């Protein structure tokens, strides 16, 4: 009789290494993983059911809570889907403000990701720095929207309020600060040989299969495939802005780190461009009384490039004052389930949370 050598190791749900509240069940032989299963559902709130019971505007409070680290792409997606079904025009200034908010959110999420990626490798100093700096971005959000984490700022028909006075100068100041800090981040994390040793060759995704497997966002770009919703399916004013996609060919954790590092820099540039080019004018195409607001029947699939990948919303209206169906697909829906399960086979136990962070795993958007 063959003796079972594998140990079962439960990574989560109560585990400091796991990103959020989920569980990866590992079968381990020595330090090598032979099998892994992702278990989710610890955060399931039934958002899509709740939205069927709320009217179109009430659903907004729900939409932004789907992804905690980066709520703005969700708001934007939902607003854009509703606008597409209804055919509502968005003033030009509102589009620019939305783009600004999205880019700021991207910067904040990348800073949070720096913390996750380096923290899972034991470099806690980086996390302390970057999350501290992320707070300056959150301060900007607080001034703009009144909320630190959940903003509920991007509405159908525009944005909720105009930029406050002197806001542009503050944004530029923060961007200058972040750019200076980026040099220090490089020294601490990206030029660190130990980090490079940890990251190189770990978590490899086959570039030829990547598209078919549903890889999106930074992991796909790190596999050498130029794919960015901002370029491929431009929304808001991204077609009027000048930026580059991150690019790497190694298709491992190191490549993803480089892509994200590059895109943080690009986002800082984008914010500067937006502030420079932003036109004056109306910021809100007012919707009728929200309680009686009826959206005509129809459906729309919209998507946004969030910091972790492509966010897709499929919204169906049946011509009443409530959405018929809002179906959300976040990048982690594929990344953390089938892809992660495949990638972990043969990996080292030490690298599990490292790989998970590099894929941008975020359980709330799997479960909603």
């Amino acid at each position: 009789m063959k003796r079972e050598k594998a140990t079962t190791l439960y990574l989560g749900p109560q585990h400091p290494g796991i990103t959020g509240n989920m569980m990866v069940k590992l079968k381990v032989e020595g330090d090598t993983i032979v099998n892994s299963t992702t278990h989710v559902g610890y955060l399931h709130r039934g958002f899509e059911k709740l939205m069927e019971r709320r009217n179109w505007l009430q659903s907004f409070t729900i939409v932004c809570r789907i992804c905690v680290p980066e709520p703005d792409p969700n708001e934007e997606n939902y607003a854009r889907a509703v606008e597409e079904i209804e055919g509502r025009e968005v003033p030009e200034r509102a589009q620019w403000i939305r783009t600004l908010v999205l880019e700021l959110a991207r910067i904040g999420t990348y800073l949070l990701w720096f913390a996750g990626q380096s923290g899972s490798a034991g470099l806690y100093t980086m996390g302390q720095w970057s999350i501290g700096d992320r707070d300056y971005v959150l301060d900007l959000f607080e001034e703009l929207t009144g909320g630190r984490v959940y903003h509920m700022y991007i509405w159908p028909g525009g944005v909720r309020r105009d930029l406050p006075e002197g806001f542009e100068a503050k944004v530029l100041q923060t961007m200058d600060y972040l750019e200076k800090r980026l040099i220090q981040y490089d020294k601490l994390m990206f030029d660190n040989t130990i980090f490079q040793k940890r990251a190189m060759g770990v978590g490899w995704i086959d570039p030829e299969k990547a598209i078919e497997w549903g890889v999106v966002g930074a992991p796909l770009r790190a596999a050498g495939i130029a794919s960015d919703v901002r370029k491929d399916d431009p929304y808001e004013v991204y077609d009027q802005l000048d930026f580059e996609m991150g690019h790497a060919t190694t298709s491992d954790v190191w490549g993803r780190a480089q892509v994200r590092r590059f895109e943080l820099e690009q986002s800082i540039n984008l914010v500067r461009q937006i502030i420079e080019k932003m036109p004056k004018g109306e910021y809100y195409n007012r919707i009728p009384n929200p309680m009686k607001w009826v959206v005509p029947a129809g459906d729309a699939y919209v998507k946004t490039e969030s910091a972790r990948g492509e966010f897709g919303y499929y919204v169906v209206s049946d011509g009443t004052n409530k959405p018929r169906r809002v179906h959300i697909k976040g990048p982690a829906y594929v990344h953390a389930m089938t892809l992660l399960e495949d990638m972990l086979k043969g990996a080292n136990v030490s690298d599990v949370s490292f790989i998970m962070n590099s894929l941008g795993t975020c359980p709330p958007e799997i479960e909603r």
Partner: protein
Amino acid sequence: MTTENNNLEREEAVVVALKATFPDLTARVKRIRRVEASVSKALTPSVLVHAKNVLGYKALSHISCVDWIEDEHFELVYILWNPDEKIQLLIKTLISRENATMENIDTIWRQANTYQREMREMFGIEFPGFVGAKEFLLEDWDDMPPMRRDFDTKEFVKEAFFLRPGREDAKDVRDTIAKRSKEEIPEFAKKYSREK
């Protein structure tokens, strides 16, 4: 949203290409980069395979399901993405709501596994031949699949959970706080108090 309706040649070409292979299917251009096709249930897997292997829709972006309880059917929406043409193709199909079953497309796209697990759990759609863990988001669920329209979540909540009663006395919250912390209510605040 800027909808340029002037240059839709590539989208039109997709419609033509789809219709050439499958004469039964209806397809139309929704807007730039969005093409929609309605297919019968039996034809769906072959359309998906054709779209993936011949037309270049390599990526499966999304599989959604809408419950049209009035018409007694589910609408499944397979959303595909063509990374070269940059076109999103929505393939819609209707299946009966009673004993809902659908072809398993796990073998075409590996990640369909997750979507099908969710649909099986949330809508009760069965996929013959599909192997996947039974539980996905819910644990020990013995009620109706919750995403069906006839599942009333409010009634369920009333039965299953404790609901904190509201403030029945409808007193001003300031009074309660003040009473608890034994603070003097400032003069200006008293006139807002509902307890006269």
